């Protein structure tokens, strides 16, 4: 039943967006987490989305069923390659021998726009699920 797929698809979309919101929250929370060495400093994290393709060949019916409706998946979370921010703060307790501390490469403005986009997309998926629910509920009253 195709309408049942809508729930899976919207669910996968909500899942992906909430993961994106999670990474955004982590990035903003750690935006000012200083570190004394380049290796230990927090780096911005971003999820990688990909569409799920469901190209199963059904040889019994002689149909290449190109069912593309399978939702979205998160391939993984990658760390940002953007340059870190070294700051000369010799009185900072984490300062290294030269007096530098390293701040993460998180751009707070970018993260805020990411947050807005993620929450809007989440909302859209909720609405899709809601109207699919109404469609299914209506079908259940057939003939009454």
């Amino acid at each position: 039943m195709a309408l049942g797929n809508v729930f899976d698809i919207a669910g996968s979309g909500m899942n992906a967006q909430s993961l994106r919101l999670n990474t955004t929250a982590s990035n903003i929370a750690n935006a000012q987490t200083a570190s004394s060495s380049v290796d230990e400093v927090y780096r911005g994290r971003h999820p990688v989305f990909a569409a799920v393709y469901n190209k199963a060949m059904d040889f019994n019916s002689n149909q290449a069923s190109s069912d593309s409706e399978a939702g979205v998946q998160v391939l993984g979370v990658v760390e940002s390659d953007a340059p870190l921010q070294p700051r000369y703060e010799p009185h900072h307790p984490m300062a290294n021998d030269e007096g530098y501390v390293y701040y993460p490469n998180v751009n707070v403005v970018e993260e805020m726009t990411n947050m807005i986009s993620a929450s809007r997309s989440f909302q859209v998926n909720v609405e899709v699920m809601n109207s699919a629910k109404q469609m299914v509920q209506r079908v259940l009253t057939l003939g009454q």
Partner: protein
Amino acid sequence: MAISFDKALGVHEDAMRFRGHRAAVLANNLANADTPNYKARDIDFQSALAEKMNPQNKTIELQTTHQSHREAKGLLVDDGGLKYRTPQQPSIDGNTVEEQVEHGQYMENSLAFQASFTFLNSKFKGLIGAIKGE
């Protein structure tokens, strides 16, 4: 005397199936609104209807010119009218989903589903009335 449900219900049953399928396709577009390089898809009602009307055009038949040739059925040529959408404002990450367009189409689709349902429901009401003899 038997009631033929196929004749009684008409095209509305197929229409509802089509609407359900299209809802899944559009929901997939909306779920992938932030996926790079995702291409938005939609089902063309015209081609889906044409396929329903003459289903014999669906496969390519291989011609047999020798008696030892074996009969083989071709795969489905088209994919039930599943096409790619042309974006009005292409985005830089290769994604062609336009959320407002998809949302509008989804709402229109669910209204059409409702309409088909209403027709189907009144058909059933008519059948029940005929059975009761009212």
